[in-house]
């Protein structure tokens, strides 16, 4: 089901009402059924994949738990079964076409007269997200960080819970299952916070992301050879804002929908385009994925053993390290995989490698920053980080690696700054978006505390804000485009 639709508004209203009316013992079953309906509204037959992934990890994790730690071989085999099933599903549905096409290209290049044929494969919504969740659950059990869940209902709900099912945030079992087991008590605060987040999310999606989308589509469909450097920057910024509004909209609605039932799911964004370094950027952008990648990919690849969990904000806070090796290799490998996770295309791999190179350079230059404090100035950091981060969206959105290279190459040639080829409005809209983003951040982080000191003014301003939000959402609410992250 798509969040930006009348269907979802109706669905959510019914589910929330039932949740608070039904007795506690039925709530979980109702949520599980609702989650199946939510997913089935896209394609019910693909629910079977989630069941396969969920049951596999339920059985395997219990088996791992029952196996003594001394029997390392059996525990590793069980973990391998979980990984093979989950990554096998992901590999088949997400990467088979990609690898087949690459094999065929390689064969053709080598002059081998053979090619694999493959029929269409529909990428199941959310497969990248729920497989990561089930993998992390089994790995945590394997690491001894959590105990496996005995109740199939609770476990099923952890995997299928509809607000975060299709595009995250990627939830850790330790965070969600505790809440699912508690007997909820209704608080009006849940409704207030939930509604606010849903309104913010819908506004970002239907008013901003969906209206930027046609401009971005037109720009990236154009012949990249014709573009100027100014056009490339404009497209980079526009798509950067589109994907941010789109994905943070989804996260706002997911957090809000869950909050309506008193269940907290993690935040995914924190003003990423205000970041003053790339390290900072990845603490603010798709937080649940970056922490997942860190805990289940980067740290193991770096030779760091994870021994403790704090239960919130990922498990890295409770780390006890035994060794630190291969950090750079782990960095590049992790980011290449992170890129490939986003999509089966070399453009995404390049995007990942681009980020790893920037982070690598940032690390290597740390000694200079330590010696010259002025270089740690946040405004200076922002001025450097923002354009580099935005430019990284070019390969992410480009049709092919060739197009991405052509476009990115433009920005390094001075003569490409002497003309422009897009509609004048596009440049104007980009400038307005940057300005509004900064104003919003300023109001939210600096001004709002002063406004709150004058209750009457705060009340009136907030009412006015909701008037505008509601009018715009009412006007633009249409499921004309999917959330971008659904395709990952």
């Amino acid at each position, binding site marked *: *089901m*798509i969040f930006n*639709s*009348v*269907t979802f508004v*109706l669905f959510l209203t019914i589910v929330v009402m039932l949740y608070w009316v039904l007795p506690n013992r039925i709530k979980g079953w109702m949520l599980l059924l609702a989650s199946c309906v939510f997913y*089935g*509204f*896209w*394609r*019910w037959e693909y629910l079977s994949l989630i069941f396969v992934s969920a049951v596999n990890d339920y059985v395997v994790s219990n088996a791992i738990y029952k196996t003594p730690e001394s029997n390392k071989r059996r525990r590793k085999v069980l973990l391998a079964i979980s990984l093979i099933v989950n990554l096998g599903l992901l590999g088949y549905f997400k990467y088979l*076409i990609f690898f*087949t*096409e690459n094999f065929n290209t390689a064969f053709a290049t080598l002059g081998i007269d053979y090619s694999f044929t*493959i029929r*269409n*494969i*529909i*990428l*199941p*919504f959310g497969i990248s997200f729920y497989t990561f969740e089930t993998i992390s659950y089994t790995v945590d059990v394997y690491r001894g960080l959590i105990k496996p869940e005995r109740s199939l209902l609770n476990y099923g709900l952890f995997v299928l819970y509809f607000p975060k099912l299709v595009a995250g945030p990627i939830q850790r079992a330790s965070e969600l299952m505790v809440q699912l087991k508690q007997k909820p008590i209704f608080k*009006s*605060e849940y*409704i*207030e*916070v939930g*509604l*606010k987040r849903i309104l913010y999310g819908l506004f970002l999606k239907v008013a901003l992301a969906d209206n930027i989308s046609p401009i971005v589509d*037109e720009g990236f*469909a*154009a*012949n990249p050879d*014709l*573009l100027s450097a100014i056009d490339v920057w404009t497209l980079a910024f526009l798509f950067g804002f589109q994907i941010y509004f789109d994905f943070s909209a989804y996260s706002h609605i997911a957090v809000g929908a869950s909050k309506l039932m008193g269940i907290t799911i993690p935040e995914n964004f924190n003003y990423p385009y205000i970041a003053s370094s790339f390290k900072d950027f990845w603490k603010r952008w798709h937080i649940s994925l970056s922490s997942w990648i860190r805990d289940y990919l980067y740290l193991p690849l770096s030779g760091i053993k994870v021994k403790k969990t704090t239960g919130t904000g990922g498990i890295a806070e409770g780390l006890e390290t035994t060794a630190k090796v291969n950090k750079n290799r782990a960095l590049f490998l992790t980011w290449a995989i992170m890129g490939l996770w986003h999509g*089966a295309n070399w453009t995404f791999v390049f995007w990942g490698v681009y980020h790893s190179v920037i982070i690598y350079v940032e690390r290597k230059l740390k000694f200079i920053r330590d010696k010259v404090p002025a270089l740690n100035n946040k405004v200076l950091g922002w001025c450097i980080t923002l354009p580099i981060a935005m430019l990284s969206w070019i390969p992410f959105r480009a049709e092919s690696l060739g197009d991405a290279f052509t476009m990115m190459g433009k920005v390094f040639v001075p003569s490409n700054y002497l003309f422009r*080829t*897009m*509609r*004048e409005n596009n440049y*104007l809209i980009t400038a307005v978006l940057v300005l509004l983003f900064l104003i919003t951040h300023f109001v939210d982080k600096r001004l709002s505390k002063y406004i709150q000191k004058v209750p009457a003014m705060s*009340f009136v301003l*907030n*009412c*006015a804000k*909701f*008037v505008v*939000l*509601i*009018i*715009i959402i*009412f*006007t*633009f609410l*249409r*499921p*004309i*485009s*999917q959330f971008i992250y*659904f*395709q990952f």
Partner: protein
Amino acid sequence: MRSGLIQILVGAIVAYFIIVKFFSNDKDFGNLALGTQTVMYQAFDDTNFLHLVRLDDTLERNLISGWKLRGQKDVCMLLGNSQMHSINQIENGQTTYVGLLHNRYEDSVDVLGYSCPNASLQDYYLTLCYWSERLPVKYAVVPLFLDDMREEGIRHEFLSALVNSRYQLSDTTRDINNKINTDLRKAWNEQGGSSANNAIRMSEAETSVDVVEEKTPQDKTEAYLNKELDSVSKVWRNRPNVRGELFNSLYKLRNTVLGISASTVREMIPQRYETNMEALIALLDYSKAHDIKLLIYIPPIRSDAPLPYNLDDYKKYKEKVAALAIEYPNVSFENFEDAIPGELWGYKEATSYFVDKEIDYMHFQYKGHQILADKLSHSINLMFR
């Protein structure tokens, strides 16, 4: 109750009253720029339209049944933008050049017209293909406005017949055809509420034409709910108007802040220019392949005020299309840019706040239509030989 909840509730109530009070009027945003002096007009005979400004199923049937009643003659299809369906300072009994030409040739061919506001060359190409598959189009007349080269994509909101019938251009070897087909599929998805198909991935060899056929339970439910809401709530039904109103306000705000008016020189947009030029070449190729005699012409523009174009761009553009026409034996080219004297034009609604009216470069009076009909008639007679 918590203060935050009260704020949301108050916001919702105020928003409801604003929507009901200010957004319940029906406005035609496609022709908003015409203003009060200029009136939209579609030529018609006793019972049927001769000229459509919106290609929907009912109007298409109406036009075709008229053609049948008049003896199913060969068709001369006039394509255009709002210049074709507008008369400045209209008086009773007046018609557009479509009506005038229809009457002039009623014994030999059926002159019919289709126009839509801000048409792009992609619109002209698409609609010529569409009409020639439904009517025996032997002659076609297409104006080449420089303004239209700044437009992008197709105006699918005026092409519901094509969207409903899931029309696609058959020759998928041309990039421009694939682009137009994609635009049509997007329009179909928008109309049917289908967006779930974005996640369908395909191997390179397969086209995605058949993808739009699939409808998920979400699509069906959404379409049903919207239909029900449309039927019970005028406010809900008027949401497209509200969207138009909001975008129009932003457009006027931009023009006011930046001092943009109808007279402001508009530069070419190279990306769009190239795409539209590609569409023009596809149109010329199509006319040649389908044995359609084609007249392309530089349309009249107001000459008593400085042109809102970069004059170098305009000159190169005219030379380019003139040179193109020479390459096709079935195509003739004319330049009518100075055909209509300044006094036969008028003013249009202002496109910014705090201004009453602006010079109208696009729409002229009935006498202008007569002059253009005479000019076109001369060229059409040459085509008939």
